[in-house]
């Protein structure tokens, strides 16, 4: 089959519909990939954004107002936000208070705070309580690599149980960046996945989302984990051509969520992955917003 240059292809029109606005707006300083894409979508929930500052580099969008503008311009209607400060700061209580305050002050409800809890800290249970009762957070975001615990740690299991009892979603971050490119003084190993399926099975009602797991968790271990309970994955670090479609050949559609890992990653990466894979409308809607909406709405 001979092939014409892509500028003549039928897909080109659709592609431009998604991307053109981004390119044009980006030249003005803030990109907007999905202004037109949103015309056919009822919303976009980004389950993987961060506020505050990445410890090793200033980012163009590490200002909350700028990040909100970027998300809005790209059609994001809700963003689940953790805090970069939650990686290394010891005073987790103020990290979470600032996160909640930032989410209140910016975005008009677009930002949904997901607090940090470190089960290695004394009295971490009170951090969880404050997230739920004082800040009314619907979920928490955990960074075992940065906080130095393994997934077979009894405190981790207890944290999942207590969060579930409070009806909170738990996000588990596998990595923040490519291990090969980490700062020599901040080399953080991803958690060993093997114990997690058992912990999930022993935590009835747990609603778990794995963030940035794609480079660490593949094949049978991923399938085992998804079967173990209500386990979801985001697409921020999903790679290979047609990666989303390939993922859907293995993982049920209702377990795949949109996540960008902005502002550490260019937001456009996740959005363009939805274009790269040939997805039908049901699949697009599920990944863009319906799955996240359902996950957040459920209470155990």
């Amino acid at each position, binding site marked *: 089959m001979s092939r014409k240059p892509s500028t003549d292809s039928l897909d080109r029109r659709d592609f431009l519909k998604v991307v053109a606005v981004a390119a044009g707006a980006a030249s003005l300083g803030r990109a907007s990939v999905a202004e037109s894409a949103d015309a056919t979508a009822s919303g976009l929930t980004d389950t993987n954004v961060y506020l505050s500052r990445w410890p090793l580099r*200033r980012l163009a969008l590490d200002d909350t107002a700028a990040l909100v503008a970027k998300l809005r311009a790209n059609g994001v209607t809700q963003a689940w936000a953790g805090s970069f400060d939650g990686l290394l700061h010891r005073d987790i209580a103020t990290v979470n208070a600032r996160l909640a305050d930032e989410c209140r002050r910016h975005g008009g409800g677009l930002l949904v705070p997901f607090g940090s809890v470190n089960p290695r800290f004394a009295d971490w249970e009170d951090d969880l309580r404050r997230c739920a009762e004082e800040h009314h957070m619907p979920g928490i975001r955990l960074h075992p690599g940065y906080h130095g615990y393994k997934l077979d740690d009894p405190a981790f299991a207890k944290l999942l149980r207590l969060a579930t009892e409070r009806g909170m979603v738990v996000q588990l971050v596998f990595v923040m960046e*490519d291990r090969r490119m980490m700062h020599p003084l901040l080399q953080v190993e991803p958690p060993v996945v093997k114990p997690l399926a058992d912990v999930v099975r022993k935590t009835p009602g747990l609603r778990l989302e794995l963030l940035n797991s794609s480079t660490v968790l593949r094949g049978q271990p991923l399938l085992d984990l998804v079967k173990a309970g209500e386990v979801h994955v985001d697409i921020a670090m*999903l790679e290979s051509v047609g990666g989303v479609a390939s993922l859907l050949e293995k993982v049920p559609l209702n377990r795949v969520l949109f996540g960008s890992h902005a502002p550490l*990653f*260019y937001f456009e*990466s996740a959005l363009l992955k939805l274009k790269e894979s040939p997805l039908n409308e049901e699949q697009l809607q599920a990944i863009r917003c319906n799955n996240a909406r359902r996950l957040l709405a459920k209470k155990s």
Partner: protein
Amino acid sequence: MNHEIWDVHTHLAGVPGNTSEEKLERLLEYADRMGIARLCVFLGMKWNYDPSPEDMRQQNDDVLRAVKRFPNRAFGFVYLNPKQTQASLDELNRCVRDGPMVGVKLWVALHCNDPKLDPIIARAAELKAPVLQHCWDKITGNLPGESTPMDMAELAARHPKATLICAHCGGDWERGLRAIRPHPNIYADIDGGDPTAGFTEMAVRELGAERVLYGSDAGGRSFASQLAKVYGAEISDATRRLIFAGNLKHLLRPILSEKGIKL
């Protein structure tokens, strides 16, 4: 906004298909979805870090068959092993001087600052073929023969008239871009790493827009994540056009012209 996009770095591996032609056809289907007009393709069906002369020929034959089927969409780069100096020179002549290939791919057989590369780089320059060298600088440790951008800087200093492309910019791009910055004959291929914000802006700021090339490293990487480095960067649209296609066209124009291909 309509951008013409040429991808300087793709592979057949990681793409479905039983033959190299089938793989390239599938890769082009994805490229079509993303609005990518042209692909540079290298490495064949069965990769080898340290290929024998026979392996090299086999892999290059895979690519030759594929690009022959899609001559208006794909350019081949010849895969060489500098440890096999004479065989590499022979292969360079076979695939570039006498064949349709337009560039050279060097991978991880030998650090690129090794003098064994010198005759290959010199011959590539004679043929006006750009040389794309894989470069990583991993905190977790490089492969024994895996080049760094610092190695490439040494090579560039010895061959100021050669056109060199630093693939991946070392992965650790904040260090890699610094290493290649003093050498105007090194171009930055920003492919293959995570779409980390700031990469493209720093490349443009430190090297100049004319030295930055879009590449993907597909099929192992997605086109999407790598395109995002350009679409998502806070750069002018004129710069975006250079990175997406203008700069690569400029690099390839001399050899394409010699082959009778007009842009």
